[in-house]
């Protein structure tokens, strides 16, 4: 195991943790979801690093692909009209009275 691969591992792991924090700290739903999909792709990379190609394949297709699609759909659904909670988060200017 060379120094380069060590640095790669540490950067990968660091990015994963940082992305996880970002996903949950992000106020806007869509941003959270997009960050999560990026997180999923990096996790797939981690599986490759850990010599787990089977899991990497499944993760890329399921974790990032289908879960991502489901999450995007849900985020879109919840951002629709009269959504005070998310709209307050998504639109910094207005409260919940946007479509009153």
């Amino acid at each position: 195991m060379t120094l380069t691969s060590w640095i790669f591992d540490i950067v990968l792991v660091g990015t994963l943790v940082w992305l996880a924090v970002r996903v949950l700290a992000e106020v806007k739903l869509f941003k959270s979801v997009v960050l999560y999909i990026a997180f999923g792709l990096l996790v797939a990379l981690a599986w490759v690093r850990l010599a787990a190609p089977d899991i990497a394949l499944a993760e890329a297709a399921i974790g990032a692909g289908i879960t991502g699609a489901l999450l995007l759909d849900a985020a879109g659904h919840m951002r629709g009209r009269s959504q005070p909670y998310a709209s307050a988060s998504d639109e910094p200017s207005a409260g919940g009275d946007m479509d009153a």
Partner: protein
Amino acid sequence: MPRVTPMSPAPVRIAAAAICGGFGVLLARALLALPEDEAGLAPLIETNLEASGVKHPITAVLLNFRGYDTMLEIAVLVLATIGVLSLTVARPGTWAPVAEQADPVLSALARFLAPIMLVVAGYLLWAGEHAPGGAFQAGSVIGAAGVLLSLSGYARPVWVTRFALRAVIAGGFVAFLGVAIGVMSAGGALLEYPAGSAKTLIVLVETLLTISIGAILVSLFIASASPAEELRRRMEENR
């Protein structure tokens, strides 16, 4: 109008941080205390690989040694789909395509990618016997292809009748169950493949599972993405 705080109040956050910190320390200590180079069950799996009927150890574990886990896991998938259906509308033909007007770029992309993905899935299924791949991976690629198609408006014609839909969802599980019980008539235990036919049966089960996992993942997506208006209308009908 005050903005909504997207976080819990400070006391909750402090308590949560304390709890999480505690678990973090517990976990870290446990992981660092592990003996280096513990073999686990890997040697045992290696020894029995020959008898499993396949050459790829992960496939051997999933489809033979611990095939029962896999069977129950397909049941989890079926259950989740029934759960999603129970929340949405399962009337025949009421599922609108997710995109009302398909984006031309997206649909061109889907038309281009979907066949390739099917080929990839076929390859993964075939490779699973001796290399990374197998029903899960192949099924999820089919699922992803289906999601792509449904996003570009191609999925609707698939869901013709309610029975066809249910058959697609439960079919893979029922077939797996059928094989699991069927081999009992040959004198073995549940899921005990008769000597010599293990490989054939595993390939059969894997093929069924690939189709079924793919179909379930697509229907999970389509069913859960069914329009909110439908749900709302149904709520009102029930009042």
